[in-house]
């Protein structure tokens, strides 16, 4: 059974790797990373801004960039995993083989997860190289401390990206029209990442729900903002004194991310097992 999962995972990984979309993702990701590095450089040279040179500052900005654009890549991969299969008709062939449906979905999840990890790893290498070029004087002596914290940043970013990957997979399985499925997922992404944490929206919604300004309105506003997983990422970046301690100091935030992932994964799993994809 494990062999079957690994075979499906390998096929999924090679499908994604050979796709021309990978070049677009990586090109755009690299461009965004350069813009982000330039932004950091701008802030460090601007006399009016207080730029905080700290290891955690660099790591949290990396986490934010990887998670934010990575989630868009996750959505695209979730869509492509089903789209490529539908286009090639491969899923029909796969389903008539002596394979459990569980093996197919597990293999697909595993293959896509490894692929997303590779994309994040590639982006992280570029970002680190850029940081060393721009802030080498500061970062040089701390490079060992930086490198031992990097896997934790990658783990949190991966957790975040997988939430959107599995959500996209779920929507692509439920909605038959491919383009509509992708547009619906992106619209949801905009609402979750952009509209919910927006002060104008969250404060107005909390005012309406609590019936005016009060202590409960402020609590409600904080609750509405915290619904978005990007708030959790920002919170970890801002509150965690050292990313090495994230499992003890911000464990509840990680549990929230993990729960989002678990729910979307379980739903995708159930839908795939119960529905005829083709």
């Amino acid at each position, binding site marked *: 059974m494990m062999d079957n999962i690994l075979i499906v995972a390998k096929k999924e990984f090679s499908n994604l790797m050979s796709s*021309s*979309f990978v070049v*677009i*993702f990586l090109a*755009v990701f690299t*461009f*965004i990373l350069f*813009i*982000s590095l*330039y*932004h950091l*450089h*701008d802030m460090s040279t*601007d006399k009016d801004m207080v730029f905080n040179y700290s290891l955690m500052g660099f790591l949290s900005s990396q986490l934010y960039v990887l998670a*934010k*654009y990575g989630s*868009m890549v996750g*959505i*695209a991969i979730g*869509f*492509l995993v089903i*789209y490529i299969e539908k*286009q090639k008709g491969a899923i029909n062939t796969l389903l008539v083989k002596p394979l459990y449906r569980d093996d197919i979905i597990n293999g697909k999840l595993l293959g896509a997860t490894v692929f997303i990890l590779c994309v994040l790893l590639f982006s992280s290498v570029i970002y680190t190289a850029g940081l060393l070029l721009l802030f080498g004087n500061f970062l040089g002596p701390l490079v060992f401390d930086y490198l031992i914290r990097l896997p934790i940043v990658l783990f949190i970013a991966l957790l975040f990206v997988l939430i959107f990957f599995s959500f996209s997979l779920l929507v692509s399985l439920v909605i038959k029209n*491919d*383009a*509509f499925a*992708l*547009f*619906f997922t*992106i*619209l949801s992404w*905009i*609402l979750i*990442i*952009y*509209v919910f944490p*927006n002060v*104008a*929206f969250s*404060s*107005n*919604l909390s*005012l*309406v729900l609590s019936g*005016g*300004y009060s202590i409960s309105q402020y609590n409600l506003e904080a609750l509405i903002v915290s619904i978005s997983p990007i708030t959790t990422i920002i919170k970890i970046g801002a509150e965690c004194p050292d990313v090495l301690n994230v499992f003890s100091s911000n464990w509840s935030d990680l549990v929230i991310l993990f729960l989002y992932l678990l729910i979307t994964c379980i739903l995708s799993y159930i839908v795939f097992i119960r529905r005829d994809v083709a």
Partner: protein
Amino acid sequence: MSNNAINLIARNEFANIIRHPLVIITIVALCAIIIVNGAGSHWLLFVLKNMGIKEVFMLGVSNAFTNTSVVLSFLALCLGIISVAGERSNGSLRVLLTKPLYRRDVIVGKYLGINAVILTLATFTLMISVASIMVSYGGPESPQMILSMAFYIFLLYIFCSLMSGLMLLVSILFRDISMALILSMSFLYLVWFVDIPMSLQNVWMVSPVLQYFTVANGLLTPQSSFIQWFENALPWIVLMIFETIIIFLMNCFLFNREES
């Protein structure tokens, strides 16, 4: 070029798009954002008024401005893709092209249909926004605001029209719908969600979003008179219209060339 054929295609495009499930879902999302903003204004605007801030009505409208702009521009991107790449992938574009029609009539008709939907939605969005604030707070403080809002609808329309035109171009250049979809995602992210360094602001003015924000921000949060705003905004408005026309002509040219 036959006006009758263009008119027919535009009307058909309008009817197809306006019933599309994505448009319906987006309208629901827009209404939710606007109504929450309108209802919240019942408390927020009175507090701002008591603080001595003038023209709080416009502040109420501008509170939902970023959120509605991002959702509407996203919809405009989708319409550009659905209209050509979507129809090409489900085969309906091929059926249309077998009819006794010029290709330029097809693309002009489609473009006009999409633009009619965008104009309808931009007007609808602002009408709902104004109506909800009028119910919860009261009417605008000065008649000049009505002129500002009419200009805002025009700006939103030009901006969304430019976005849909760009995606129409992507759909014509890349025949594969998945490629058009992935490119549109990347474009949406780059123009809306990347934090631009201050020193790159001038270079980044090529982005339609930044051009739109430069013009619309001054309109909705009035620091100066309408005439002053108009004088400052006019070069940007002309540039946006010029870009829209260029993109439209490129679409016509490239779609025509596909035939040969």
